[in-house]
């Protein structure tokens, strides 16, 4: 076991891990931050996406020890301290961008990374960017709309009738 320290959602944390402990496991098991989900074992599904030093990373593909000293952001740190959802989270609710919720943390974290590098993405750019995030419930339709809305683009309201 080796001690590892990092900053997660603005809080200094540390723990003892094996060399093979993945960052996703450290977040879930050592820190109890179970919002980061593990949906596959081949780094395909993206449910475990977090930000490490500002970059979107699949936390199942990184050893906890490799995050030594890093600044890590997870889904638990996205809303305001009073619980107000951030603009992406709110858009996901407004546009029904989630159903079972399992892929959602990774989707929100990927969407945040996308909007940071491309503040007004087109639909095609969003679909392309989400190549590493699998959702089985929504067919992506409302996820794409939620991200467009979060970027301030005009999106018709859901189920207008």
């Amino acid at each position: 076991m080796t001690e590892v320290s990092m900053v997660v959602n603005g809080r200094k944390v540390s723990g003892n891990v094996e060399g093979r402990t993945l960052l996703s496991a450290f977040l879930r098991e050592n820190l109890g931050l179970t919002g980061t989900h593990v949906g596959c074992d081949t780094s395909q599904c993206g449910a475990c996406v977090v930000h490490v030093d500002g970059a979107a990373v699949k936390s199942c593909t990184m050893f906890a020890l490799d995050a030594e000293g890093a600044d890590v952001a997870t889904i638990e740190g996205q809303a305001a301290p009073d619980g107000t959802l951030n603009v992406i989270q709110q858009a996901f609710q407004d546009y029904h961008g989630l159903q079972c919720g399992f892929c959602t943390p990774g989707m929100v974290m990927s969407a945040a990374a996308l909007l940071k590098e491309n503040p007004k993405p087109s639909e095609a750019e969003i679909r392309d960017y989400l190549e590493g995030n699998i959702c089985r419930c929504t067919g992506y339709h409302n996820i794409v709309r939620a991200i467009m809305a979060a970027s301030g683009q005009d999106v018709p309201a859901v189920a207008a009738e």
Partner: protein
Amino acid sequence: MPKDHGIGASSKRREDVRFLTGEGNYTDDINIAGQTYVHFLRSDVAHGTITNIDSSAAEAMDGVLRVFTAKDFEAVGGIPCGWQVTDKFGEPMQEPKHPVLAEGKVRYVGDPIAAVVAETPELARDAAEAIVVDIDELPAVVDMKAALTDGATKVHDDLTSNLCYDWGFVEENKAAVDDAIANAAHVTTLELVNNRLVANPMEPRVAIGDYSRGTDDYTLYTTSQNPHVIRLLMGAFVLGIPEHKLRVVAPDVGGGFGTKIFHYAEEAFVTFAAKAVNRPVKWTSSRSEAFISDAHGRDHVTKIELALDKDNNFTALRCETYANMGAYLSTFAPSVPTWLHGTLLAGNYTTPLVYTNVKAVFTNTVPVDAYRGAGRPEATFQLERVVDKAARELGVDPTELRRQNFIKPDQFPYDTPVAVTYDTGNYHATLDKALEMSDYANFDKRVAESKSRGKLRGLGVAHFIEACGIAPSNLVGQLGARAGLYESATVRVNATGSISVLTGSHSHGQGHETTFPQVIAEMIGIDESQIDIVHGDTSKTPMGMGTYGSRSIAVGGSAMVRAAEKVINKAKKIAAHLMEASEADIELADGQFTVAGTDKSVAWGDVTLAAYVPHNYPLEDIEPGLEETAFYDPSNFTYPSGAYFCEVEVDPETGEVDVLGFTAADDFGTVINPMIVEGQVHGGVAQGIGQALLENCSYDDNGQLLSGSYMDYAMPRASDLPSFDVDHSCQTPCTHNPLGVKGCGEAGAIGSPPALVNGVIDALHRGGYPVEHINMPLSPSRVWEAIQSMK
């Protein structure tokens, strides 16, 4: 103005807040003090005799509590099957024992042989690798038709063959169907495969067993769509634990799509082992493990023949299907190719004679069971493909051939020749809607535009009917179900007027926590925020059958309405007493009880408070309290239907198919929350496009799974799919449930595969390649080969 609350409003989902902030409570998020972990050692060969298991090295490792094998389970039962099909000779299906851990033989890659319980997941896995298993490999049976040949290796030695059953429906009609086909003006024939799929909810399965010596109580936390069903099957048939000593909890569940209906060996294992090691035992499936342990879906091989008279009226339909059961019978597997398939083959049409033969076959593959739609996608695919082919052969517009043969709006209720009666529908209306939405009139212009870019454009049409709201218990009992299919609800009104609804339905993405309160809010006239839903815990809710078969709102919602009606009736008695009026004169609207024709009123909260503080209360006539339970058993299935159009572009140089647009015009009857209904259709259509274009569960001849991870099994990604154009304005409400609802969960997955395949065939024909059929998934190589075969 759209409604902003109650039935018909697109209320935002309250469950989203916890899911969006990482505060969901999925089974893998649960950790119990003292918890241990199990790792299953699974067979890496498809068929073989276990000659020796040496677990001594594993047992000697630090941190290993115990290694289990089949001999530890000699005193318990096998995993039961919940449906017994009777074959065409009147005999029961062949039903092999399904042990918790493999007994003597392994029968598919993934069959669990041994299980290690250890202090950490890593130790359990390391120890499993130290177990030495000797297996004498036997020939694997993979192909269904080969499995039925004389001399084929048997998957189960104690069965007479690999044939589970040979089912005919309606057997009495067979001669008439044969005769009609022999004498038809035209017969269209098609042989096709409904490809094997893996459901792949994003949350892998998890199970945690917990046992208390002090009270002799067991708790199972599991990723289930129906915790009461698991409690009954596992408690009564596997482990012999009475229900009152066994609690099953299915907390937030990350998608199901059918594959989390079934009772699995891992659930029985962790419950059993928790007592054996006197510690909680947790199992978390990896995705790779899910591919070889979750029940698969579909896997039918079918020949279908459609007979038409000289005026293009459908006169008969004959279907011969081979259905893969895998190595063991999963919970509802026998029902899928039979009663969920044969009864749907009238489709939207007036075909007077229908006969289906289904041979269900054991093979050395993972068990196959219901996946979103379950039997109905298979029926719809073959029917809508053969109708499309008939239109092409006869040179008529595929929409017109369908329209001509539709059941007409004034023919409902309609008795089909396949035992079911459709209560309502209007197939002409959904067709007209889809024609309008898809701009069918200008399609030829779009074809020309594509052609100018060297691409082939096609438009695929498909209609569907499904039987949802599963199901009338007395009927399914006659058909072989070993369960009732009612649903339950308790409406518990609190003293200050807020309400908890305890439902046997289970939400794993469908949004019940939002939609169910919309119904109660509408009935009483109070705010939705005053109502909460409790589900997924057998210690909290009445016996319920859970969520599948698009049954939650149609059956669970109906139970809730019935319970709420009882509550309202009692509340009116209390209100009448408080206002010194006749009960018959009491009206409830907007959360106020009034005496008709007067200005007397009393608020909902005053009545509920009186029920729990009964000082001024008719105690001689009614009991205090305000809580009612109802069990609702539907009198018929519901029959959602729709018209789905899929517009595609094929690159003739590469065979690549681009889905340009998808139109879905559905009739779901009454819609509670349009936003959620549309989301259900989006997701279903995406899974159907996945089946038609990308997904394929593939075995080699030795029974090795070739598509065992997301590296090999093509899950639809955002860039594979278009935006969807969906509509549910054509509504013919169900006539036999109180809300008029039909259910919307499976429609998208049922109607979309034939729409896509018909679209690609249309594109190829328009491009001068008269290809008759391509089996799903329509990968570039398959489409390209089909094009080359026409050159």
